């Protein structure tokens, strides 16, 4: 998937910087046919999807979490413990989506470090196509 990020800070953001309300800079992805094929291969096919004109909703969700990739690579070993998702609108193949992420909760108790990230994904017409909330437990 072609990736375009204007974010120069999130990849370097440490846990201390990730205060409640912290907003990751948006990341854009083109959901091309080849990108979707790769996703479908990874999930071992989803009957009928390859001939669909639309992107499987979980493919959109997977890429939306890409907004966190900088954080995840920095904090190696982070564990994804829960996920909320709402699929709001079909995404045609070839759409460029823009993914936004924001820290909605941060918790640190002893060695336990937890982050809840709110996700919002938009299509090229600025219509929201997906909403979500991701909880990560970070290695202490």
């Amino acid at each position, binding site marked *: 998937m072609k990736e375009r990020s204007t974010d120069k800070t999130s990849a370097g953001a440490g846990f201390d910087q990730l205060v409640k309300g912290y907003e990751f800079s948006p990341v854009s992805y083109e959901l091309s046919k080849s990108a979707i094929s790769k996703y479908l291969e990874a999930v071992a096919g989803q009957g009928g999807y390859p*001939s669909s004109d639309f992107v499987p909703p979980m493919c959109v969700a997977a890429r939306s979490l890409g907004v966190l990739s900088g954080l995840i690579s920095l904090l190696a070993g982070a564990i994804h413990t829960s996920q909320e998702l709402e699929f709001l609108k079909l995404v045609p193949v070839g759409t460029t989506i823009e993914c936004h992420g924001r820290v909605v909760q941060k918790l640190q108790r002893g060695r336990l470090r937890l982050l809840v990230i709110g996700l919002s994904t938009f299509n090229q017409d600025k219509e929201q196509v997906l909403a979500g909330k991701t909880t990560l437990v970070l290695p202490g």
Partner: protein
Amino acid sequence: MSSLGKQPKTKLKAGDTLPAVVKHVSQEKINLYAEASGDFNPIHIDEAFARQTPFGGTVAHGMLCLAYVSEMMTAAFGRSWAVGGRLSVRFKAPARPGDTITTEGKVVSTVDEEGVVYANCSLGARNQKGETVVVGEAKVKLG
């Protein structure tokens, strides 16, 4: 019409179970998912790193297992799942390379909200030992 545009022929009702999806997890699939999603957390793809963690080896992305659950929901609800479907899940245990994951789901209740009927579903996935990997709930419009 695309598969996402199709609606299942049978109308589901409270008490109905959803058609299970069975998938085999391999390191190859996990690596592919890392590429497709952009999530290269070493806990998924670096065996040496993962061996030092409490998991003792690589584990699949939670979102990979959730994709299997979503496939079950698409098979059951079609377009209604892709537009307006909502889920909330917890990842209870890791799926590891070599595991076989089976999804499960049930329509717990239906509710009429201003003339629109929704199904409230329980959903989840287990490994071949019967251990819960994913558990949660979903809400989706019927018809």
